[in-house]
């Protein structure tokens, strides 16, 4: 196993999904710019609005860029750590995180009162993926990747939903 204590602490301290739908702050915008390098940040105010956006046939170029970066970082991490230890650490961190953020997403959805049940799983998948991406980056020795900024948005209670043209859509 690889020691991932600091990230575990950050995961537990994060304000998962507590600011969904709230007006955007300067801090949110700064993290969003650092994450996506876009001209504009658009706020989404409700779960149904978020669901409609996520189900729409938007461009997935941003998703593919993140996947390409994750794969590059994973190759670097594999060169730095024993395969079994790396794999076990990532699996156990993601499992632990998944259970935590699922509960947080369920709480946020219950408070809002208008989220589809499956959207709780979607939110948990997004948040746990962000933690996994950040873990891969740090295990690769990368401390300034866009996955740091992405995690900060989640840690501040937000959920970045994706990039549409020159806009980042933030819930």
């Amino acid at each position, binding site marked *: 196993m690889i020691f991932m204590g600091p990230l575990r602490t950050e995961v537990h301290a994060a304000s998962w999904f507590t600011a969904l739908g709230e007006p955007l702050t300067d801090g949110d915008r700064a993290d969003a710019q650092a994450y996506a390098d876009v001209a504009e940040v658009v706020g989404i105010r409700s779960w149904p609005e978020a*669901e409609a956006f*996520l*189900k*729409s*046939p*938007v461009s*997935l170029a941003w*998703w593919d860029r993140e*996947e390409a970066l994750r794969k590059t970082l994973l190759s670097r991490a594999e060169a730095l750590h024993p395969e079994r230890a790396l794999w076990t650490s990532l*699996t*156990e961190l*993601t*499992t632990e995180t*998944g*259970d935590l953020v*699922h509960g947080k997403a369920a709480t946020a959805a219950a408070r809002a009162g208008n989220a589809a049940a*499956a*959207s709780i*799983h*979607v*939110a*948990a*998948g*997004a948040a*746990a*993926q962000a933690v996994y991406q950040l873990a891969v980056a740090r295990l690769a020795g990368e401390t300034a990747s866009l996955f740091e900024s992405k995690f900060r948005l989640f840690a501040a209670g937000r959920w970045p*939903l*994706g990039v549409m043209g020159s806009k980042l859509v933030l819930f």
Partner: protein
Amino acid sequence: MTDIVVKTVEELKDAPEEYREAVSKLVISHAINELYGAQVFDEPAIAYAPTPYAKWLTCRVAMEEYGHHVRFKQLGVQMGLPEERMIPGKGKKPLSIFEFPLKTWEEFVAIKLLADLAEILQVEDLLHCTFHPLRNLARATMPEERFHAQFGEDFSAELVKTPEGKARLQAAVNEYWPYLPKFFGGSKSKNNEIFRKWKIKQRTNDEMREDFIKRATEVSAKYGLTLPEIREAA
């Protein structure tokens, strides 16, 4: 039938050897198959999912499947089983369905619709298991397995809205269905006999297979899908 109830991993040490071996085989089998499922189907499916909503939902499903592997492996470790025995490639042969790498989103939807129904039946059979740590693990796993099967239903409902989508889904069902009834093991399985003797499991492989075929036929029909005839006896 032999009456025994084992409430903790600690108590398992005092159980008959045949009982301990039977429980170990089940834990190893579940740990390996959950991991195979996550690696061969769930994780690759993220790339095929058509929208961010479907991608993150698939992420969550993959994480839950990996989580099932982690939980079964943790139980195995508590029981004193070497981790190597609960990881693929270290001895136990995978189920044949895992030998076919995922190629399309429709294949993944068909697998969630039907293969996860088979998984539900397997977990259901452990809900009254006399080894309570395994029974409790089955109870923790069951809501997630049900959600995965519902995922299959929800996306099947989406796909069959168009003739093209329905045809692609039916083709995927045709491809994977013949392998699924084998999931339940042989008709004269010695292992199953021992599982039932100790009430670790409740039903014969044939009873479970028959129930699975009935339920799979019903759920497929809900979406206008048919199951191809299985020529080979399982």
